């Protein structure tokens, strides 16, 4: 048999429990033994005693162990979560259909509306915000001759149709594709998320967007 009593990691012990002459109460033994097992399960993703109930709760994917979806299930990794790719090139060199965000015109926004899958993750107590709860927009863009203003709007669309959004304005400075990190982010939850990404030229200098990605950008908390 193994301990499944005080196995929660939320039952640690203070240093004062171990000073000279401190009482050796039973909970010391339970906490030490229980936490040792809980930490092993959290790390290894395995119940060392499969004939018994696991000592830990399941991660957001309903498996045992940490899955790097953010605290308390391990540090998250930085990576793209959803994306669109294209390329603007002269047809003399690259034959392909016309780009969807080429030569953006002033007052003529173009948008992408889609539903993507975000990793299930634990929410964090205020004021902390879980890594996968905010996804920032990474953009590849360029402009023909003059620095161009690019308006960005990132919307999260709720099931009832209500919208939360963030906006940003980026100055596109390169004549060749370069990467830009927008301050606009999507408020996301685990599972399916409905989003809309919208680009608008802020002036007459017709920037082109050739790729974008919604990305996780922190490891433990925003």
């Amino acid at each position: 048999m193994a301990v499944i009593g005080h196995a929660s990691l939320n039952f640690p012990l203070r240093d004062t429990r171990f000073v000279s002459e401190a009482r050796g109460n039973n909970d010391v033994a339970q906490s030490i033994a229980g936490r040792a097992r809980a930490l092993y399960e959290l790390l290894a993703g395995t119940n060392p005693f499969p004939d018994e109930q696991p000592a830990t709760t399941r991660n957001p994917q309903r498996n045992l162990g940490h899955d790097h979806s953010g605290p308390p299930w391990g540090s998250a990794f930085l990576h793209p979560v959803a994306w669109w790719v294209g390329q603007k090139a002269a047809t003399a060199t690259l034959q392909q259909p016309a780009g969807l965000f080429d030569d953006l015109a002033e007052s003529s926004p173009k948008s992408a509306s889609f539903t993507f899958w975000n990793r299930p993750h634990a929410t964090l107590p205020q004021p902390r915000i879980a890594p996968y709860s905010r996804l920032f927009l990474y953009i590849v863009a360029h402009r023909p001759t003059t620095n161009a203003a690019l308006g960005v709007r990132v919307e999260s669309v709720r099931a009832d149709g209500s919208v939360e959004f963030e906006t940003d304005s980026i100055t596109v400075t390169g004549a060749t594709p370069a990467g830009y990190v927008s301050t606009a982010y999507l408020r996301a939850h685990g599972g399916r998320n409905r989003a809309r990404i919208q680009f608008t030229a802020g002036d007459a200098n017709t920037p082109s967007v050739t790729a974008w990605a919604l990305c996780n950008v922190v490891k433990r908390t925003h």
Partner: protein
Amino acid sequence: MARQKNATFVGTPIVDVDVGAPSFERLIENAVGDTALTFDKGTGSHAEAGVIVHDGGDGTGALLGVPIINQWIGRTLVLENPDTSGKNGGVGDTQIFAAPFHLAAGETSILVEVSMALGAGLTPYAKVCDTANAEVVRADLVRNDDEVGEVDTLFSARLSGITAGWNLFFIGIDTSEIRSLGLSEMGALNYVRVRPRLRSDLVHAPGSLRERGAQPEIQDAGGDIYGVTTPAATEGVAHTDFEASLFANLKSIDGYVLSRLNRNLNGLAEFISGWPAGGNTTFVHEDQDGGGAADATNPARSRFEAHTRSLYANEGQVDFPVACAGFGAFLDGLDGYFAVDLAEPPTLGMLEWYPPWPRNDTEQTIRNLFVPMPDFQSASSRLQCAVLFGSTNDGAADPTQWTIKAKTTTGNATHTLVAGDDTDGRGNLWLAIITAVPFTGDAGELVEIRMSRASAKPAGLAGIGEICMLGAALAFVKP
């Protein structure tokens, strides 16, 4: 002098912690040994073989379940002149999506969800082939209720029995169905989602407390009250080792062992979970640069279990998909048919969604993407880029003249196609896998996939023709 460590997890029987139970030395001995095992598995210290690689194996870490494809496409699927027969533009199955993808170790099943507007009577399917283009599994994409707020229909399928590693993924439609129905406009392809099937796909009810997942806490009173030892400059997590001789028969256990064991547990809790131990209000662990200053970006000293190998050279490495995308439709018929005719511009076939064709031999970027990279070790990069190509099997075609380059902000890696990259020997489908792609952890990388030809195209294949880029994928592949 031997270090106290258990080769496998031992645990503690309930009778040893029951109310009124004597304080057995063996409880402390086993807890010390189990904690040392946990530390070694998490850090790779002491030549531990069972490090965490997240392959779902016994004691090697839970599956990560990272989505493989989350691509918005937003294209119409217009099939110009569907009755056109002949070599190009409209005969046979049309693959409206084709890309290589990497399935992480331990995964075997994927869930495919495709949002499309598609004419009635058409039966799309999803298919996985191995890198030799041999079919592994195929399933019809079933129409579901529309996703909330979406105009298009969500089609889905589950595909199982897939071998981990690089594979080929296709979404196809039998174009002859189009012709028999007399349709010219198939509809639209909005987005494609592919992810490993998760246990949470099966367990819908909240169930017991154990099923709901833990939510972290912050203790209200007292601030940081649970002791975590601040690591030394070269330590990832401060961990006290104990000699096995401390736990010899009849030897008493003193407060030093107990207090250090308690701190070992608190330190590991923060290291593994990424959350302050016990609900402390602040972290003790801090990612630092080489000079000891705080640095969360590609830190030289990572103080969390994150597979960085910044301080632990034997820390486990993981399979991790970064991105995967398809670039257009094509036909993989027996005689090298394509979704469009080889005119410049094309006039037949799927004119609004076909893959890019390089028209000259000069190196150029075909597709690019700007993304942050995880903070994995980069000295011996495990980042790979797989690119799938379609080609004519016209006698003059020679895809082995093409060099593919994965260029990042950090550097580049190349692969020149060889005969062995012809997936099934028919000359239609070629797969290049570029290894050791340079990258910088925690940094935004502009990834460009570029192509160049060693010499000018043969006269009969001038302009477009010979090779097109169907799709590509980036993934970290563990040893």
